[in-house]
């Protein structure tokens, strides 16, 4: 009951914060433009951890707009376990926008997405993390509403973890490998107050709630993730985020993590 109250409380809080929809921790239902390429480097730095084995993560990523409705991501996982940075695996993500209701300065859109991840690193936690920790698959639904300078987005997904490569022993009984993921994100375009040209720096503020519940044990985590985003020349992006656990029944060695991301977009790349 307490968990539900926390979730509803955070959701209501998020609804009153404002931001645009280039969310830092989740994807909106919108896609990148067709024939464009986005080059990303995401770095995650643990701020508080209970074990020594999880360290700094670097996640290089290519984002491709295959068509107006379909986009694909390819991502690599590098992790500094035990002092040296090593390659742990990679992930493919695709998203298909199947519904759009657009008007001037507003839209409501929905999309399906799927992710397939391979990871050879040691499994460190009960929570499933397909973005750098686990092999597995995920599919889900995204709904995003844009109203002028405010964007609100929700995600519901199903995650299934595989074994992490042949060298990894089976960590969990098979029934514990399924989880439900959910998120609620809100963001607001803060600057510029009046648009004049493409060279103006854009500032977006965001607040995201990110959760997961194991379908067998019922244990869950719920993180709160405020972030700040700067956009330069209407094509380069820097994200600064901080993610911390509010509910932490589902075991994870890292419960507080900082994020730094660079992104550069190439329009009409093909």
């Amino acid at each position: 009951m307490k968990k539900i109250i926390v979730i509803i409380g955070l959701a209501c809080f998020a609804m009153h914060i404002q931001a645009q929809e280039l969310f830092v921790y989740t994807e909106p239902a919108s896609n990148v433009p067709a024939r464009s390429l986005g080059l990303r480097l995401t770095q995650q730095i643990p701020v508080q951890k209970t074990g020594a084995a999880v360290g700094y993560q670097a996640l290089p990523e290519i984002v491709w707009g295959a068509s107006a409705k379909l986009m694909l991501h390819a991502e690599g996982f590098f992790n500094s376990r035990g002092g040296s940075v090593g390659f742990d695996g990679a992930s493919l993500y695709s998203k298909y926008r199947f519904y759009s209701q657009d008007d001037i300065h507003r839209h409501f859109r929905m999309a399906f997405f799927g992710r397939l991840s391979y990871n050879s690193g040691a499994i460190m936690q009960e929570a499933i993390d397909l973005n750098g920790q686990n092999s597995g698959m995920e599919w889900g639904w995204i709904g995003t509403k844009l109203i002028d300078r405010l964007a609100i987005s929700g995600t519901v997904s199903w995650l299934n973890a595989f074994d992490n490569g042949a060298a990894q022993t089976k960590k969990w009984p098979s029934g514990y490998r399924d989880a439900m993921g959910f998120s609620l994100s809100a963001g607001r375009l803060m600057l510029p107050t009046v648009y004049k040209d493409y060279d103006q720096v854009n500032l977006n503020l965001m607040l995201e709630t990110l959760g997961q519940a194991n379908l067998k044990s019922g244990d869950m985590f719920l993180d709160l993730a405020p972030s700040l985003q700067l956009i330069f020349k209407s094509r380069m992006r820097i994200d600064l985020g901080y993610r911390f656990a509010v509910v932490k029944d589902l075991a994870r060695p890292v419960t507080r993590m900082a994020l730094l991301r660079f992104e550069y977009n190439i329009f009409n790349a093909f």
Partner: protein
Amino acid sequence: MKKLSLLLAFLWAGYTGMAQVEGIELQASGLTCSMCSNAIRKSLTFLDYVDQVRANIRESMFTISFKKDASVNFDELKKKVEDAGFFVASMKVKLRVDHQAIRNDHHVKTAYGTFHFLQVKDQELNGLVTLRLLDKGYVPAKAYKKNAVLTSRACYQTGLAGACCAEDQVEPGSRVYHVTL
């Protein structure tokens, strides 16, 4: 080659009056930020006959100018906006016209496709006129449904000439753009 040129010139002359698109003003829907606006601008400039795209980011407006004697295709411009991830809310075409008679709910053949005039008085157009496209995908979905009362002809639904357009000698299957002043 010379014969072909003469034939093309003859065909061009057959398109009475409506000779040249001078520019287009387009408003896109579904966006607020400058990165999205930039994506639309870049997408439009990918078309080789587009000369310049000037953007008003705040209003999501794009003023498009074209290269000389460009063969402008409205559907291609619309698709470029959709490729960027957005939609056309309004497209206004500035057209140089030489004494062209128009009638409400009737067609006029031009080099850019056939124009089917709606909600206009029967009149003669001359000089620079602005036409607003009313087809599906060129106005918000609600406006498209609302405008359906303006004509009973089936080409409004399909965007293609059918039996309904035969009295104006429009070739069946050819593209029909529904426009108003």
